[in-house]
């Protein structure tokens, strides 16, 4: 209806003659958060003259001084304003009482009014998503949704993000939210491939209630992305360009007092260790500002040198990264069809020298009516990614840490031409020049995504829709990893302590494809009779996933720089695997309504899956929820001046999820073929000629694996106060997941290393709270503050008697992230020192040395218990400022890089006692006369507080996990942006430019870490994006970055 009215208004506009006093008024309509309001109606009071706002909230209308404009839009309080002399207006509408009638896209692409929905959800509009101009949608969502934990788990030119709603349910299976793009289930990775500018809105369904329509994968909640459609009316062209600079925001804290050398080279008269020009470990004497040699003399007699004083060049290896992103879109439509076409091209250079990434996307979306009864929708997007990056981030980081901090790394950039930077002459014989490493170890990757879907909707009679959909998400991927050859000179190999060994060239090459097909067919029947309404959906879903991976490699490449598998010596390594899985679902979904304020909603689904044994392959799961709009039902509330809106809701659901194999990540196997143990034919070099040999696989499989079952409830309310100037919603939930499919490490003495079985239960419960307050609202000013808060109690209730704990991700099977019965999920386990009952470290009464415990113990929970986001939005006329802060706390993180820092002697801890002997802090020793009781230690010092083999490099320090477990708490300024809408008058009287906006924005601008965290961003996950073993950081992630940039966008 609204659109019809708008059209009438437009028509009226054309018919009107523009008289002398009339001039063209332009304006822009935003909501209180700065989001443009699309399709708002602007009418001159008392006339038929009017128009509607476009996709950017802009409008043009001929009017004269004294006219009263009536501005209205669905979901907002209407507003009237009398025109003064202005010709360029910045208008804001407050969210109106009709908010509960706003239509949102929920599971299955079904449109529901907010008032009907009985479970928690969050809607993110396009402008909020792209305010920070994130290249990746996931980072654009960070901190914006209560209950949704998005962690940037890696660094680099296209970082990975882990999206978990309401905590982790599955011990070792997939816990990431389901991503649905235009009604098609797509791999999570696709979120990173999507052009954020194409997104119309994102609806986050926090709970598992969506599972009926999407199947069991939605048990982790769903993120439903809807892309833009074309709009009726004149063609609209949008172009924009964003340039973003990335710079390192945080470096590990290092000691700045001591340089190369150590006790291994002897002691001076004062007992201090000697300097050595080759040593990578910084256990030498204190810096003294004297110029000293660096490395052995070269063959020509020259010798590198450096001033023996702290040089901040240590970390300057990482440079500024630059991303340049260009956008184009075209939108058009008429009565029967709409059309949206877009393209984006972005190029990125990383903070690691030489890392490049570019991405190009095109999209075509359209709708078409065929007659009165058939409606066709189609969406297609193609994305191609090209990476050219180093494969050795971790070793380069380690190389840098093993560089005494008086050495300016940037001097070694030109390794091809500079003799001291060349591997032959590079001063450090054990650790390569990182610039050389970056150049020599390359990975070129291409991956192309095609995602498409078509939908036919047939409406034989009003109220009945028959819908058929076919979706496809396919990915073609290939990569080539290369290592270039380097032959050292005889001199370089044999000088001093050099252990330089020739590098043999090698190549690894792989091609893969994945295709995921999804077919849906359902009917929807809507009927209203008196006070009652019913909305029924029944249908079926077919899903087929296929993948193929082929990889090969060759070593000892013969012809230099010919990186082809045929150029190697010996037999090339080859591997091939194929996967195919299928799933059938039958579902029903019914919603009963009473008097527009009470809704009862139920769903039921049965799945049949190919990846379980026929006996276990079918499972059924129902859900039910209730929505009660108290502010409409109860007169007292309805008439209240304080309460504008109150909805009470609650739901219960059960979902089965088959958690086998890898369903997310770059190389999913979709859980195929996990039921039977396997034998490997390629171990130990087999086959040797005609002689084949098979080894027994190391994984045991228990006989009848079943789906994991999650049951739980949620209750909550949505409350708006003071004419919707205060908007809030609150949800409490509690879910339990049983029959965990666990792939756990077991004692080697069983003959195996891991066991796949169903056991254990996890629980996830918490509070999600969102609240916003419009503090100032005048014609020129608008200030909204608010935020969201998540409390998460995520724990493992039990696993099994035989498995007291379960490793999720570990470093050499010890320190790492574990699931432990009765503890948070997950926890960090590792070695600690032996402690007295009060927790003091027990040291030896003679040596002062602590003792490492025999077995690993609990060192802290790895999941953030409290997360808080605060956002601020300020508008003043054409200016708009927004900022988003996020806090996470109540958890620990194990920083594995600490062991490398202490090894190299650059670690801050190693200089805590000035490299002197020291008394271990807060320690006790056992009373020699009274075993079992402890005396506070203030006297017995550790003798060797220094040296290449002293306390800091020894296992007694570095093997003790607890030394590197720190608080994971942080505050981050996630996003900040300032934009300015350029008045169209500056473009002259031509009507070519409709709107123009310039903005500056930044992401992750500031990061405040806990005091004991000397290392890195606790958001990182060394275990990888798809592992539940969170809480571990390491050298494979470059130091965390901040991003800042500027955008100009113009609509024609």
């Amino acid at each position, binding site marked *: 209806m609204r659109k019809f009215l708008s059209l009438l208004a437009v028509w009226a506009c054309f018919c009107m003659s523009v008289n002398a006093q009339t001039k063209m008024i332009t304006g822009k309509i935003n909501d209180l958060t700065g989001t443009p309001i699309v399709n708002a109606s602007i009418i001159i009071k008392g006339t038929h003259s009017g128009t509607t706002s476009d996709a950017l909230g802009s409008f043009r209308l001929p009017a004269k001084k004294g006219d009263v404009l009536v501005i209205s839009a669905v979901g907002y309080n209407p507003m009237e304003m009398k025109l003064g002399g202005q010709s360029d207006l910045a208008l804001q509408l407050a969210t109106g009482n009709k908010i509960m009638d706003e239509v949102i896209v929920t599971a299955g692409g079904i449109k529901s009014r907010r008032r009907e929905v009985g479970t928690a959800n969050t809607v993110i509009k396009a402008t909020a998503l792209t305010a920070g101009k994130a290249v990746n949608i996931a980072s654009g969502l960070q901190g914006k949704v209560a209950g949704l934990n998005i962690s940037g788990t890696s660094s680099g030119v296209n970082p990975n993000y882990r999206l978990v709603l309401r905590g982790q349910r599955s011990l070792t299976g997939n816990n990431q939210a389901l991503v649905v793009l235009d009604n098609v289930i797509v791999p999570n990775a696709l979120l990173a491939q999507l052009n954020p500018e194409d997104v119309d809105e994102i609806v986050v369904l926090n709970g598992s209630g969506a599972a009926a329509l999407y199947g069991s994968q939605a048990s982790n909640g769903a993120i439903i992305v809807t892309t833009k459609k074309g709009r009726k009316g004149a063609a609209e062209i949008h172009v924009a360009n964003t340039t973003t600079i990335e710079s390192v925001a945080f470096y590990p804290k290092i000691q700045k007092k001591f340089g190369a050398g150590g006790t291994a080279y002897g002691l001076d008269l004062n007992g201090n260790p000697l300097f050595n020009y080759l040593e990578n470990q910084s256990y030498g004497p204190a810096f003294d500002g004297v110029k000293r040699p660096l490395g052995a003399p070269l063959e020509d007699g020259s010798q590198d040198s450096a001033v023996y004083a702290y040089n901040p060049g240590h970390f300057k290896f990482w440079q500024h990264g630059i991303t340049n992103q260009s956008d184009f879109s075209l939108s058009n439509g008429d009565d029967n069809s709409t059309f949206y076409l877009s393209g984006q091209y972005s190029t990125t250079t990383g903070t690691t020298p030489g890392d490049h990434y570019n991405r190009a996307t095109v999209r075509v979306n359209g709708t078409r009516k065929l007659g009165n009864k058939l409606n066709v929708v189609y969406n297609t997007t193609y994305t191609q990614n090209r990476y050219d990056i180093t494969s050795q981030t971790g070793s380069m980081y380690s190389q840098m840490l093993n560089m005494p901090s008086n050495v300016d790394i940037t001097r070694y950039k030109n390794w091809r031409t500079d003799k001291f930077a060349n591997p032959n002459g590079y001063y450090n014989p054990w650790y390569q020049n990182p610039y050389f490493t970056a150049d020599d170890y390359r990975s070129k990757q291409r991956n192309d995504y095609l995602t498409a879907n078509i939908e036919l909707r047939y409406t034989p009679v009003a109220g009945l829709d028959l819908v058929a959909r076919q979706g496809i998400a396919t990915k073609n991927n290939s990569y080539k990893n290369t290592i270039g050859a380097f032959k050292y000179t005889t001199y370089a190999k044999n000088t001093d302590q050099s252990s330089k060994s020739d590098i043999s060239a090698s190549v690894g090459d792989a091609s893969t494809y994945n295709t995921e097909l999804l077919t849906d067919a359902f009917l929807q029947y809507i009927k209203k009779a008196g006070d009652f309404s019913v909305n029924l959906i029944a249908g079926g879903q077919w899903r087929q996933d296929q993948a193929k991976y082929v990889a090969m490699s060759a070593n000892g490449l013969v012809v230099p720089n010919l990186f082809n598998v045929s150029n190697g010596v010996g037999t090339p390594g080859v591997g091939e695997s194929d996967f195919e899985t299928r799933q059938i679902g039958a579902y029903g979904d019914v919603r009963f309504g009473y008097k527009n304020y009470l809704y009862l909603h139920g769903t039921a689904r049965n799945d049949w*899956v190919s990846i379980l044994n026929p006996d276990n392959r079918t499972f059924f799961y129902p859900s039910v929820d209730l929505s009660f709009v108290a502010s409409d039902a109860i007169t007292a509330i309805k008439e209240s001046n304080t309460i504008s809106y109150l909805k009470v809701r609650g739901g219960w659901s059960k979902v089965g999820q088959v958690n086998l194999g890898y369903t997310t990540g770059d190389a999913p196997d979709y859980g195929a073929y996990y039921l039977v143990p396997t034998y490997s034919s390629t171990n130990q070099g*087999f086959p040797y000629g005609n*002689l084949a040999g098979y080894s027994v696989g190391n994984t045991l499989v228990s006989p009848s694996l079943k789906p994991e079952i999650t049951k739980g409830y949620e209750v909550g309310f949505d409350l708006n106060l003071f004419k919707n100037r205060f908007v809030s919603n609150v949800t409490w939930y509690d879910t339990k997941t049983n029959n965990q499919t666990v792939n756990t*490490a077991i004692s080697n003495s069983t*003959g195996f290393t891991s066991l796949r079985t169903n056991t254990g239960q996890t629980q996830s419960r918490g509070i999600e709270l969102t609240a916003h307050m419009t503090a100032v609202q005048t014609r020129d000013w608008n200030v909204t503050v608010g935020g969201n808060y998540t409390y998460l109690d995520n724990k493992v209730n039990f696993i099994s008697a035989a498995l007291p*704990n379960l490793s999720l991700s570990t470093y050499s099977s010890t320190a790492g992230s574990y699931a432990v019965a009765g503890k948070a999920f997950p926890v960090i386990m590792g070695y600690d020192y032996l402690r007295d009952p009060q927790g003091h470290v027990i040291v030896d009464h003679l040596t002062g040395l602590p003792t490492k415990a025999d077995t690993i113990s609990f060192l802290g929970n790895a999941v953030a218990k409290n997360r808080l986001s605060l956002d601020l939005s300020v508008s003043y006329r054409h200016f708009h400022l927004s900022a988003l802060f996020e806090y996470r706390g109540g958890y620990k993180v194990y920083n594995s890089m600490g062991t490398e820092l202490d090894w190299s002697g650059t670690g801050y801890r190693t200089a805590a006692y000035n490299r002197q002997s020291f008394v271990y802090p807060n320690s006790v020793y056992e009373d020699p006369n009274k075993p079992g009781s402890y005396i506070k230690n203030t006297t017995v010092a550790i003798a060797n507080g220094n040296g290449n083999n002293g306390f800091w490099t020894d296992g007694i320090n570095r093997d003790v996990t607890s030394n590197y477990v720190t608080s994971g708490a942080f505050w981050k300024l996630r996003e900040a942006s300032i934009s300015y809408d350029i008045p169209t008058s500056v473009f002259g009287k031509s009507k070519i430019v409709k709107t123009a906006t310039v903005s500056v924005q930044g992401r992750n601008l500031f990061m405040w870490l806990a005091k004991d965290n000397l290392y890195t961003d606790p958001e990182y996950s060394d275990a990888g994006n798809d592992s539940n073993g969170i809480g571990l950081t390491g050298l494979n992630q470059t130091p965390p970055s901040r991003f800042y940039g500027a955008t100009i966008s113009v609509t024609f």
Partner: protein
Amino acid sequence: MGASCKKYLNINTNPNQATSATPELILPQALTATASTLNVYNTYGAELVGYSANAGGYGGFGTSITYNFAASDFSANWSNTYDNLEDYQTIINETSTQLPAYGYFNAVARIMRAYDFQLLVDAYNDVPYTDALKGTDNLTPTYTPAATIYAGLADQLDSAIATINATTAATGVAISALGSSDVLFKSDMTKWKQFANTLKLRLVVRGGTKVSFKNTTFSSDGFLASDALINPGYTRDNNRQNPAWNNWGFAYTGGDANKAWIPSKFILAFYNGNKLQDPDRGAVAYYQFPSTGTNQLGYESVDNPKCPSGSFWYSGSERSGTAAGNSAGILKGPNAGYPVMLAAESYFLQAEAAVRGIVTGDAKTAFNNGVKASYAYLYMKPDGTGASDADLTSMVSGYQSDNSTSALVNFDLATTVDMQIEAIITQKYIALNYISSQESWNEYRRTGYPKIVNGSADAVQTFASTQSQSTRPDKLPTRIQYPSSEGSYNPRNVPKNISVFSSLIFWAK
């Protein structure tokens, strides 16, 4: 569900990996895996018993020179052996219901299981044995006392010999021969029985009176008289090289292998005249002998010799990585067989058994055969050709006359049982140098030979590290730690409070 639905969903058959394998397919892989496992044990033994020392150009030796072993040190001993044991156990499980048809496979798998378990016991003392290798039936196996395992292994070896005999005697049944699956004895069942006897001899000699063996007699098949070498067809190719060559010689691409270790001054003294004169074995064992670069373990300084490409344990003159490797010596080449047990070890075990009265026989003959077998192995090339018997005899007699006053070489000069044992174990120490180093380490801990001077700073007098943190008089560790995986996944059963300086393997001195 209808039949078509079932058909639609019945697609879960693995197209990528085998889901079953016959004993014929598992055995060759299992034996080859044993060779790889032994390479891990050889490295461990060589570091601990003084065959190798840290090379120049490298740092970071950590616990290798302090001996303050963490659970992660040498943990591959544990994981590789149990992994290999599961292969043998699978053969045993698959064949135990198919006797006598699969009797040979069954017996061979049990012999190799005994071999592997002895490796574990000698490294860790008590280990999971009775409860081990049971898969889901026991996820946290208890630890069986080491001496009990020894007794059990001896029984298993007897029983394996009986199974071989029963299989050979069986009539009316088609017997599956080992055929090409046997990459150790090429289907020679007599050698398997001799090998079993020799393994039992090793158990009985080492376990001594600390083990209640049920039966200390040996079958009439005799003991191993030739080198037991595993060779599936090693060649200069990706993952197909002799494991020791791959580890210490050259990568198949011609690139350098591990260059962090060089021979110790202690072991060179047995060749270069500092203790014994042995130019023939010295020259074939070591590159650039007698100027081979050596070091004392723990000594880290710039004047430390560096390891040459191909290492000092490869004596061949062809030093290009892509061509090297057709040589006599310790590292012979990429295609050489990997020794599971040298004939020399068998003879020295027989010699000791004769001295101790465990078997009847002439200790001196066995001793001299052991020395000669050592020459024979070292002078053998990868293709099996070697020095003639006459040459070997003359080299051995040259050795005896070069060291005419040494009771370590001339058995007649060893006049007491202690002297005889010292001679036997010391010669075994020389014969197994960098070949079966773990056995030398076991024998040192059991007998105290080769003799060292406790606490000496002289690299020829002791092989202990100069940076040893050991509290023992000999400045050596006594054992390694259980791997951390046991602490993590089997914490209730893993023995606690193990000290690498005071906890002893049950047979240790």
